[in-house]
């Protein structure tokens, strides 16, 4: 079996992730921050350790500015719905996932003004296309760091600089890059950084979060939910300090124990080692696919400018049929269709049929990539011969 659906959820995790989760289940198990007994304190320490690791990975000075959420989508909703008010203007890119587009379209119905910066058919963004959309009432620029369809990396640092020059908040969705591409919230001028726990950060599903930069005034970022936090219990109003203001209800502590271990693994391996490995595999995958005459490979065809997500089609057969046959005949797992990103598929010209996406993780091997290319080549031959 070859798993190449890591842009959705990474399947192979470091063994430390499983160990940390089992340890929590067997030896800790209590509610963090709700009681003063040793197990509750230990649970709170595990959460804090996960915050510290996350802070180290993204260069955040204060780990308490990391707010844990269920997933990147919840974190994006917290940021967008918490900041934007009617008559505010927001700018995004034409390569966005629906995790950004759907909240924005709903906010648009509530009176928020939305502009979309056009990206190239390869999935790249010219920062000038963002700059020329800025207006007096622009409150926020939001974009993904890399597309989940083509893997194309967007110029976060340049756009962040533009946002800062115009005193506009900058929100980045790092679902596709967190853990496999260097991110520094200071160097990249990021005010709000969303991360997904279960992809390249190697946590389990049900983990993700939002990092609140120093420039963000929490008085102007409303919580998505309110409730019990274990702090200020004598008050019936929400506490105003981080992270409690945005973390009502018991967190997914066992999941975050796993996420913390996943991020610790990344820090130990080194982000540059991970990036180099994935670029090497992406290079082989792109070139191997391009060498098959019947395929169309999307994106920029340059591993330096993309993540390990590669989308393609084979002439004369639907994407879903390719995916089914890869699974049933070759045991290769991939994702097909629109990848929750209709805007991105419109940008690259594959809407509404979509494409087949293969997405690499640090745990994939050169042998797996060779075998995948060989299998797709064989499948293309079979299709040509009506087999």
């Amino acid at each position, binding site marked *: 079996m070859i798993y190449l659906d890591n842009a959705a959820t990474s399947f192979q995790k470091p063994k430390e992730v499983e160990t940390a989760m089992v340890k929590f289940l067997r030896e800790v198990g209590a509610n*963090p*921050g709700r*009681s*003063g*007994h040793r197990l509750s*304190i230990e649970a*709170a*320490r595990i*959460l*804090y350790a996960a*915050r*510290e690791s996350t802070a180290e990975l993204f260069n955040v*000075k*204060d*780990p*308490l500015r990391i707010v844990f959420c269920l997933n990147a989508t919840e974190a994006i909703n917290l940021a967008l719905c918490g900041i934007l008010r009617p008559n505010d203007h927001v700018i995004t890119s034409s390569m966005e996932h629906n995790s950004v587009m759907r909240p924005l379209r709903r906010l648009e119905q509530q009176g928020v003004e939305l502009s979309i910066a056009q990206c190239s058919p390869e999935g790249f963004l010219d920062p000038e296309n963002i700059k020329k959309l800025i207006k007096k009432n622009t409150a926020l620029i939001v974009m993904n760091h890399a597309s989940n369809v083509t893997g194309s990396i967007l110029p976060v640092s340049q756009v962040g600089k533009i946002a800062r020059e115009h005193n506009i908040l900058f929100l980045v969705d790092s679902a596709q890059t967190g853990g496999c591409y260097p991110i520094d919230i200071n160097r990249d001028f990021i005010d709000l950084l969303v991360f997904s726990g279960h992809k390249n950060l190697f946590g389990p599903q049900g983990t993700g979060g939002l990092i609140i930069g120093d420039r963000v005034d929490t008085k102007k970022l409303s919580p998505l939910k309110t409730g019990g*936090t*274990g*702090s*200020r*219990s*004598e008050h019936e109003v929400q*506490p105003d*300090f981080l*992270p*409690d203001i945005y973390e009502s209800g018991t967190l997914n502590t066992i999941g975050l124990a796993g996420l913390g271990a996943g991020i610790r693994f990344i820090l130990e391996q080194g982000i540059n080692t991970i990036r180099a490995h994935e670029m090497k595999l992406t290079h082989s995958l792109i070139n191997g696919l391009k060498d098959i005459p019947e395929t169309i490979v999307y994106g920029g065809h340059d591993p330096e400018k993309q993540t390990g997500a590669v989308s393609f089609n084979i002439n004369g057969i639907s994407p879903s049929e390719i995916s089914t046959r890869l699974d049933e005949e070759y045991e290769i797992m991939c994702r097909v269709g629109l990848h929750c990103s209709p805007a991105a598929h419109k940008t690259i010209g594959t809407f509404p049929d979509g494409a087949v996406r293969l997405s690499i993780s640090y745990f994939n091997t050169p042998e797996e990539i060779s075998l995948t290319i060989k299998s797709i080549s064989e499948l293309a031959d079979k299709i040509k011969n009506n087999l």
Partner: protein
Amino acid sequence: MTDDYCVVLFHSTSSAIRAEAIAKREGLKVKLTSVPRHLSSDCGLCLCIENYDKEKILEILKRCGIEFESINQNS
């Protein structure tokens, strides 16, 4: 713990846990525990610091931006 310690109270568990991690790194002898009966705290947790130097504790808390309620001498 000897008798010579102080009790730092916090508004939130997260702050108490963060203070514990930092104080340990700074070489202080600390214990995170339930708040003694004669004191009260928002989060129910406090940090007991042995052989303490109040100025040093204040400096660490300030440098790391940790919000706290009060520092109480053991009595």
